[in-house]
Structure formats: C-alpha cells, structure tokens
C-alpha cells in the first residue's frame, strides 16, 4: 500500500533544500572541504572498512531482497568490507538527507541518485568522487585485473546511459538502472468508444478519446464504464509531462549552461490545452487525484502515464495493487510510448537511478566504495533488479546475456516474474533507447524540474476551481512558480561543479571589512620593510 504523504512531502523538502543548498554548499562549503581523491595503488585487505549505501526500494520488498543479497555476495568476496544498507522510498528524501549530512561530514559512501542531484552536491568541494580515473584503473577499474568478480568493462556500459552521468566533462556516477515513461492503455475502452489505437500515440488522439469518454447518462454514470468515476487521462509525473512536451516541440526548457527557458510562449500554449481538458475533468494528475494505476485497474482511467518502473502495478492482472480485488475490472492492457507531437520523431525521457560515491578522508574507504559500486553492475544484480519492474539493465553484458534474453522471451508466462505488461514496458525502452533524452544538469536543475510540474499542477487545480486561465493568469503563474522555486536566485550560467551561486554583490559591511583587512596587511608589510631597511643601514 502506498501513501501520498511521503512523496508529496518530499516535493516540499526538495524546494527547501535545493534553495537552502545554494547557500550552504556555496557560501559555507569550506567547512567540509575534502581533499581531492587519489586512488591508492593497492587495496588494503588487512584493514576492515565499513561503508554505507543509501538506496531506493520503490516500496517493493523484492528490491530490498536484491540489495541485501548483493551485499551478502559482495561481502563474501571482500570480507574486510561491510556494507550497511539504508533504504528510502523516494529519491527526494535521499537528496534531502545527503544535503543535511554534508555539513556534518556524514554523507553516505555510496548512494542511489539522479544527476540533477549530483549537480547540487558538486557545489561542495570534492564531495563527490570523479570516476574517470577509476574507470580506467588497470587493477581496480571496470573489469580491472584485481577486481574479484566479473565486472563489466567501460565499453560494456550503454554509452547513452553512461553519458547521462557526465557533468562538466567528468563522470560523477554510474548508471544503475534505466527506465522511461509509458502510456498504459485500457484498449478495451478505447475500442468501445469507437477508436483504434494508432501505431504511434499522439497527444491529439489522447485528448480526443479522453473527451469522448466523458459522456454520462442522466444519473451521472459514465457511459463507458457505468461508474460514477472516470478520469480518462492521468499523468503521474507532471514535470516529465511538461519537459517531454517541450522537447517534442523543440521549445525551450533550459540550455546546457543552465539558462532557464521554461517560461515561454509554447509552455503557455501547452498549459492552455491542459487547462481545457483539466476543466472538463478528462485530465488529472497523481498529485490531484491519486496513482494512475488505481484508476486504470478500477476501469476509471483509459490512459495512465507512469514510469516503466511502475509496470507491475498496471493492468487487470497486475501482481501489485493498492485497490481491493472486487474493484478490479477486466480489460486488455496495451503499453505504448508516451504520446508524441511528431510521430516520425518520437522523443521520451530517460530516467532511472544512478550511483555516486562520496569522498572520504581515507582513500581506501573510497576504493572499497568503488568496488561495491562496480559490483552493482554485475549481471547477477543487474538482471535480478531489472526483473522486478520495467527497468532495463545498463550494460550490454547483462542485456545480451542468455539469462536476460530468456527472460524477455518468456513474456506472459505468468503474472509475476514474466508479467506481460512489465516485459512490454521493458521492451519499450530497449526499442527506444535512441529516442530518449535527458535534460541538462546544473546546480538548480532539480528545482527547474519541479517548477515544470508545478505549472501543470497549478493550472489544473485552478480550472477545477473555476478560476479563469488567461494571459494575466499565466503571467502570475510564471512569477509565482519562479518565486516558489527561487529560480530568479540561480546562477543561470553555473554548471555542475563549476557553478557557484551568484549571491549578488558583497554586502557593504563585508566590503569595508575586506578593505580594512587588506589595509592591515599593507601596514604590516610596510612596517616590516621599513624595519628591514633600517637594519640594513645599521649593519652598513
């Protein structure tokens, strides 16, 4: 069973911490400055090392079991390394806790994360270990001679996924799992409404079918399902929705250097369209209504867009469900890529966890962390974890393995490991890796992402409350969201590790103090020089 409270709360945490971090990590980073990590020549097996691993488990106990098994297996290979697992149910909470722990030098050794978050961590000095040298270390690098397990080589990591972990020219993470978003469709209802699913789903098609599904009888029952409730189109992550719509239209979101382009005319046009369908209640969001899967499975939704990593919750026969069995409706589920504006040029987001390593005083401890991170990319871990949801492994070594190929071939054999919807979701990404994209990463990109979703959430709420959505509203909304996420306080040219927040001109008192300080040193030096000259004269 899931709870909104936790995830929504993290949204607010994110707003706060991202903004707070702009100050903490830039203005005060000196207090927790680390030395640059230098890989030791040899891993010291005579000492014991204890490392902490913060991971996300998607509130799925199979994930927990896989992490625990991976740790157990790794510790057998490296008896002098103990890995302590701490589980989270959302990325935002990990992000917040990392930032909280930076100031006390108690960051984890290894944590599951998103590149957006790493960009914020990088505003502290040497907090996150750059992995470039470790990748290629002959002994302990990827597939190195001294690594005690069958690790993938650098070439065996899917280049597109690896590239997502590169910030400011350096690799600061390894991809761990990848997913995208999918549209889970009640095909039975689409056809009952007189439509046929197109080869490529388009936004126009979804809006049209969704409005058609809103017809009700005199008693308020929806004709399509005979129920009082029908929200034909529900989107889980509205930040992704806005980002992908803009990308598909070639409109601005942000530049690679961190310039914010989100608040543009195309965004407004998209919001007007969303408002139109929000007003009729043909469209809603997770934050406003609930999990798309709950409505889909109850026959109260036709198009449910959620991560491929949520596939096990989707469909009549879904192995996981939050609703009681008596509410589940029989229908045919089809998994398709998210709707497109240009069917010939599909574009969808690439998402999923990556893993980064935090720097520590003891380089041996960092090396121990690196060995564990590599272990997470072994076939055993990659294949097992990917089978829990519609994730795909991040290495060709795993993807091309006989075991994984066998898994894919057995789609639909049962409603657990081989649950058809889950495998369709995984195949969707495997078939579309070249159509995926990620947004630019910079210090503040996490806030910008939240802002993109907030525009949709606010607009839909407003039209549901019969408020007027017009140009004045849009201008006000833009300003409100910019202010809420403090986007006007970001250094728009700052990127990654190099991006320091522009805190504005120095306060007057600071300028005076710095001048006084400089003056004092000038006096000291002048006095010393005079004394030296006198001494020389006296000596002469």
């Amino acid at each position, binding site marked *: *069973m*899931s*709870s*909104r*409270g*936790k995830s*929504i*709360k993290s949204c*607010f*945490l994110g*707003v*706060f911490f991202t*903004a*707070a971090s702009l*100050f903490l990590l830039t*203005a*005060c980073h000196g207090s927790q400055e680390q030395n640059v990590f230098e890989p030791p020549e040899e891993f010291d097996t005579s000492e014991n090392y204890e490392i902490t691993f913060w991971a996300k*488990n998607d*509130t*799925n*106990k199979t*994930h*927990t079991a896989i992490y625990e098994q991976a740790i157990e297996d790794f510790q057998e290979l490296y008896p002098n390394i103990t890995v302590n697992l*701490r*589980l989270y*149910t959302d990325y935002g909470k990990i992000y917040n806790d990392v930032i909280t722990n930076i100031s006390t030098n108690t960051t984890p050794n290894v944590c599951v994360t998103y590149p957006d978050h790493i960009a914020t961590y990088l505003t502290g000095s040497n907090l996150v270990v750059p992995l470039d040298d470790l990748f290629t270390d002959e002994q302990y690098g990827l597939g190195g001679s001294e690594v005690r397990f069958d690790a993938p080589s650098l070439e065996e990591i899917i280049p597109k996924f690896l590239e997502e972990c590169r910030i400011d020219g350096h690799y600061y993470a390894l991809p761990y799992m990848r997913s995208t978003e999918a549209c889970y469709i009640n095909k039975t209802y689409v056809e009952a409404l007189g439509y046929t699913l197109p080869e490529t789903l388009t936004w126009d098609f979804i809006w049209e079918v969704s409005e058609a599904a809103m017809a009700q009888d005199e008693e308020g029952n929806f004709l399509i399902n005979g129920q009082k409730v029908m929200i034909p189109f529900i989107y889980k992550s509205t930040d992704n929705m806005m980002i992908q719509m803009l990308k598909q239209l070639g409109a601005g979101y942000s530049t690679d250097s961190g310039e914010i382009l989100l608040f543009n005319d195309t965004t407004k046009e998209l919001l007007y369209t969303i408002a139109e369908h929000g007003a009729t209640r043909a469209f809603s969001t997770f934050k*406003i*209504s*609930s999990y798309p899967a*709950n409505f889909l499975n109850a026959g109260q939704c036709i198009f449910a867009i959620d991560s491929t990593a949520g596939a096990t919750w989707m469909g009549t026969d879904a192995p996981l469900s*939050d*609703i*009681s069995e008596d*509410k589940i409706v029989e229908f045919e589920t089809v998994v398709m890529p998210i709707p497109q504006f240009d069917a010939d040029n599909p574009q969808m987001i690439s998402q999923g966890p990556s893993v980064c390593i935090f720097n520590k005083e003891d380089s041996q401890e960092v090396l121990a962390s690196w060995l564990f991170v590599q272990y997470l990319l072994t076939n055993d871990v990659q294949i097992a974890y990917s089978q829990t949801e519609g994730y795909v492994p991040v290495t060709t070594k795993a993807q091309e393995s006989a075991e994984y190929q066998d898994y894919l071939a057995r789609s639909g054999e049962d409603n657990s490991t081989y649950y058809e919807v889950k495998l369709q979701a995984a195949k969707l990404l495997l078939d579309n890796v070249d159509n995926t994209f990620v947004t630019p990463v910079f210090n503040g990109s996490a806030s910008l992402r939240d802002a993109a979703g907030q525009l949709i959430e*606010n607009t839909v*709420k407003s039209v*549901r*409350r*019969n*408020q007027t959505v017009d140009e004045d509203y849009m201008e006000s909304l833009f300003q*409100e969201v910019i*202010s*809420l996420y*403090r986007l006007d*306080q970001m250094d728009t040219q700052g990127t990654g590790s190099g991006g320091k927040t522009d*805190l504005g001109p120095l*306060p007057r*008192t*600071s300028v005076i*103090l*710095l001048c*006084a*300080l400089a003056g*004092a*040193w000038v*006096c*000291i030096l002048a*006095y*010393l020089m005079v*004394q030296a000259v006198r001494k020389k004269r006296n000596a002469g």
Partner: protein
Amino acid sequence: MKKLSLLLVSCAFALVGAGCTSSSSSSAESTGAGTTAADTTAAEDTTAGDDAEDTTAADDEADTSEASDDAAEGVMSYAEYAAADLDTEVTIEAYVQAKQSWWEDKATVYAQDEDGAYFLYNMACSQEDYEKLTQGTKIRVTGYKAEWSGEVEIIDATFEIIEGSYIAEAKDVTDLLASDELIDYQNQFVSFKGMTVEAAGQDEEGNDVAFLYSWDGSGQDGDDLYFNVSKDGETYTFTVESYLCDSTTDVYAAVKALEIGDVIDMEGFLYWYEGVNPHITSVTAAE
C-alpha cells in the same frame, strides 16, 4: 617591533573573524528573505484573492477575539462542508486533534468538531504557528475541498487560531467496520474494541509475522507499520503512520510487540486510502 607586528596581525585576524560573522549574518538574511518570498507565494497560491496577512495565525488576543466576533460569517457547519462539491472553497471552524507533520511552512493536521472531522493537508503554517496548534486548539480554516484516493480533505488551506477548545472522545466504530456507514466518520478520532491480530505477512524464513515495515515488508525500523486485525470474520489493515507517530512513540513500540492472536483495543484517526486505513495512535490489550 614584535609587539607591533603581533598587534597588527591580531587586528587582521580580528577583522577576519568579524568578516565571517558578518558573512554568516548575510547568509541568514538572504535565506530569510527567500523564505518570506516563498511564504507569500504559498499564501497567494492557496487562497486566490485573500490577503496574505490572513494566512498567519492570530498573534495576539485582540486579533483572536476580533476573529471570533465574525466567526459566523461564511463559516460552514460540518453538514454544509460534507455537502459541498469537491474543488469548492470551504471555510470551517474546528479543533486540532493531532498534528501529523510540518515541513517548510506546511502542516498536516487532524481537526474535528462535535459533528465531524477534517483532514487538513499541507496547510500553510509557519513553524511558530505550528507550535501553537496544541490538541484542542480552535482554528478557522479556509481552503479547497478535495479527495485523494478516497480521503476527503482540505488542501491549499490557510488558517487562523480563534478562541475555544475541544478534545474529541474516541467514537467506538468497531461495529461499523463492515458497514457503508463507516465513511461518515472519516477522519474522526475513533476506537476499535476487541479485535484480533492476524498475520500481516511472512518473514524471510516464511514465518507469519504480526506487522510489516511498510505495506509489503520492504521498509525498515522507522517506516510506517502495517498490521492486520480482524472482527467477525473480516480482516482489516491498520497503520501506524510514522509521521503521526514515529518510532519513539508508545504505539510504535506496542505494534512491534504484537503477537498473532492478541486481542487488542485501539484508538486512532479514521484515514482513508482506497478504503478504510485507520492511522492508529494507541494499542492496548483488550479490556
């Protein structure tokens, strides 16, 4: 010379020290300014057209009594609130029964009056005002009626503290558990008597366990606890919500100590998530 050098160096370090202090103050000021901006935004967001000043709880008695004087104007009774459509603006007066969470000027609160209860989700609230929301405190709340997974709540709300106090007695709803009438008590402080603890799931060895960390056992100590209890052949899932009652509370410890077959009495709030999902605040052996 040494003395003079020492003096000058001391001055320099004193100035450096002063500079750091000043710098800290600047940071604090900057952060504070940012917070204020966000607060204002939140207020504007939550009540279109309302004065931002209305969003803060009354700070002094004069404000409080003034607020009480015009209490009747526009304030809904529970029956009117219950009859209101979703997404409409509502104003109610109720008494705080429990606080679930606060973060970044948002508070989630269970409130109740003699007629019914309200779940106030992420209501605009400063930390200072949150401290004032002790059990029984009367508040006037303006927000929007909403429903999330069956839970009817007030969102995007603002509030003010007004005069009055009331602490609800737990309403025994044990006999209503299987009835459609139960939802009429949604969000109220309720009790359940004489229910039997059932297996919540299995541990790694396949043994039945009386509770789970998180809904499927995927969590750890500190996460929500889920446990099953039965009455008259029907089994229900109850929760210790970790924001409402964290791992240091008696109820958290009591649930961790449950054994399958125990017969227990419970109190808590009648939360809803795709069906009844009470947030339990106390567990004792059945009387």
